[in-house]
């Protein structure tokens, strides 16, 4: 009798296969719910009509042609960084060092622009920038991977520390190269000669977008249809199985992290060479961390990441517009992003698991 009384009200079971449209429907429901909550919160703080709030979010992201271009460009950069961290995540290597890897790439690109700008022709400088930023990003990915492969060092903490080392390195070079002296920032590099500025295709936003699209397709193929991608999945599912079938786990870890870092370095190159034409310690702007969430929300599927990065950037820019329009503090967008993330993170539970309520009949028997 007593044992029956203790039977819990809820029973949680793991679902078998979930149809993709069910999964996305649950996610969509979570996002809608999160938007309602953030709408209520905004109304509570500003006393505005919630519909106006949503309208402001949309106009903030896509109000004018220029705003739309910038939104799409931001999506591209976030997408590239998210793509970069994904192969590592697929093998359960928690690379939260995207920030540092982007910074390393950005610093290398800026270094080429500053140091080689006078000495080499423009095309040669750009080639140097591409190579060096990819190498620098790759190096930043290699260090934690090497320690993980060799001594099983905790990669989350290791990559986290690498972020700050990169930040301080950038801070160091910022002061070394500052123009004018004492200003504490580098300013636009090669403003007159435009040496090392990546070429514009059509308009100044399109280059990043094209690179993002190409990387998405390549990454999708690499992860799903190549031998490397298969090895990554096996290592992620079970390291023991991988060893048993003769995959060299250490090699896969190091190779994948170098790739991860290199693509982050590419994002750094775009940030310096195509968008900002300068380097600061905050140039990555926390996107290395946001990318972790973008990638995870899309279940490490490169095509899904287009949607999730769109969602995050859209909200960020929309909430930015709200704070400008109603003269609120700019961090308001972080609060909204946080709330939406909480909901989306929480909804994954309902995709993976099913909650069964205790059947009424057994309840009666127990009495």
């Amino acid at each position: 009798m007593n044992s029956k009384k203790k039977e819990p009200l809820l029973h949680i079971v793991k679902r078998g296969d979930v149809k993709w449209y069910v999964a996305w429907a649950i996610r969509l429901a979570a996002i809608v719910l999160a938007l309602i909550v953030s709408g209520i919160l905004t109304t509570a703080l500003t006393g505005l009509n919630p519909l106006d709030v949503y309208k402001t979010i949309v106009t903030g992201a896509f109000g004018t042609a220029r705003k739309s271009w910038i939104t799409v460009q931001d999506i591209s950069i976030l997408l590239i960084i998210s793509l970069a961290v994904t192969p590592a995540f697929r093998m359960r290597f928690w690379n939260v060092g995207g920030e540092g890897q982007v910074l390393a790439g950005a610093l290398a690109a800026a270094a080429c622009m500053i140091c080689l700008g006078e000495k080499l022709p423009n095309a040669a400088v750009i080639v140097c920038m591409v190579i060096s930023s990819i190498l620098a990003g790759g190096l930043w990915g290699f260090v934690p991977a090497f320690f993980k492969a060799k001594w099983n060092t905790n990669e989350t903490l290791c990559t986290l520390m690498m972020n700050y080392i990169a930040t301080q390195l950038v801070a160091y070079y910022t002061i070394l190269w500052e123009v004018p002296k004492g200003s504490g920032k580098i300013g636009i590099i090669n403003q007159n000669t435009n040496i090392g500025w990546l070429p514009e295709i059509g308009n100044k936003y399109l280059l990043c977008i094209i690179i993002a699209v190409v990387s998405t397709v390549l990454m999708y193929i690499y992860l799903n249809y190549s031998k490397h991608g298969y090895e990554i999945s096996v290592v992620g599912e079970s390291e023991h199985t991988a060893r048993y079938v003769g995959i060299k786990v250490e090699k896969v870890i190091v190779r994948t992290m170098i790739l991860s870092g290199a693509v982050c370095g590419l994002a750094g190159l775009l940030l310096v060479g195509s968008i900002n034409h300068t380097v600061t310690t905050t140039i990555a702007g926390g996107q290395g961390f946001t990318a972790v969430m973008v990638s995870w929300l899309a279940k490490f599927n490169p095509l899904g990441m287009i949607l999730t990065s769109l969602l995050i950037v859209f909200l960020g820019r929309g909430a930015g517009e709200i704070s400008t329009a109603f003269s609120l503090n700019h961090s308001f967008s972080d609060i909204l992003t946080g709330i939406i993330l909480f909901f989306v993170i929480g909804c994954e539970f309902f995709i993976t698991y099913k909650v069964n309520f205790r059947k009424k009949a057994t309840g009666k028997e127990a009495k």
Partner: protein
Amino acid sequence: MIDLVSFIPRAVVQGIPLLYGSTGETLTEKAGNLNLGIPGVMYVGAISGVIGSFFYEQSGEINGFLAIAIPLLCSLAGSLIMGLIYCFLTVTLRANQNVTGLAMTTFGIGFGNFFGGSLIKLAGSDVPSIALSKTSAYFSHALPFADKLGWFGKIFLSYGFLAYASIAIALVTSRIIRHTRVGLHLRAVGESPTTADAAGINVTRYKYFATCIGCMIAGLGGLYYVMDYACGVWSNDAFGDRGWLAIALVIFTIWRPSIGIFASILFGGLYILYLFIPTGMDHMEIKELYKMIPYVVTLVVLVITSIRSKRENQPPASLGLAYFREER
């Protein structure tokens, strides 16, 4: 030569927020939860205290007991809510801990900066900036005789009560983890939740309590920073990356809060060392390299502990993994 009498107290006040953060995070990690939301929690702890104290100062009369109790309770409540959000998502809903933690950090820092920047506007008050000098005075009240005992008073007695509390909390936490039954159960949950569950330990309850208490301790670090160190003046992003440094400190102390007392003061010292090393005006850039030292040191410690791989120095075995009873 560095002037030790002025260096040590400054290293200590830098170290106290780190000590709170790392003690809280150690407790959390011992239950197998890697809470990367600690930076956010510390911001929320700080701003909750500030909000409480702001409205209290606005209300007029200041009473010594309430001036401390209100911000303290607000801060604890704020960080408790953050802890509950984290636990609900990672323990009950079994979400990924890294992602949840990072989302908490985004949310927490945004929350802190938003209310720090808009509190005055939202409250419709006419003060120019948040400067809570009256309540802050109670927080930074030094022990008696601090002025009279020369260097001894300066190094050991010149801090507010939260500084001494942090050391007490670290010692108590250390004792509970290592020498009590509750601590044994807690470690069991962190090392192998399956075994702990089989032994009849309520895994969910232990994870909830450890993480929430850990968050509350970490939140106090934020409170100490703003009410004592910063004299009640809130400025956005001033707390900086201390939250991440606190997480680094957990590794540095190999999951032992008692070592954390010295380690946090050491880190506090490293954090401000660049102010005390003469570099000359020509080489300001060297200072940025000195600021790198705490992170490099942590990285080296992390690698060395993994190379030596002594069993007692390893992270809790189930760190970062959600526990689902029916999965094996």
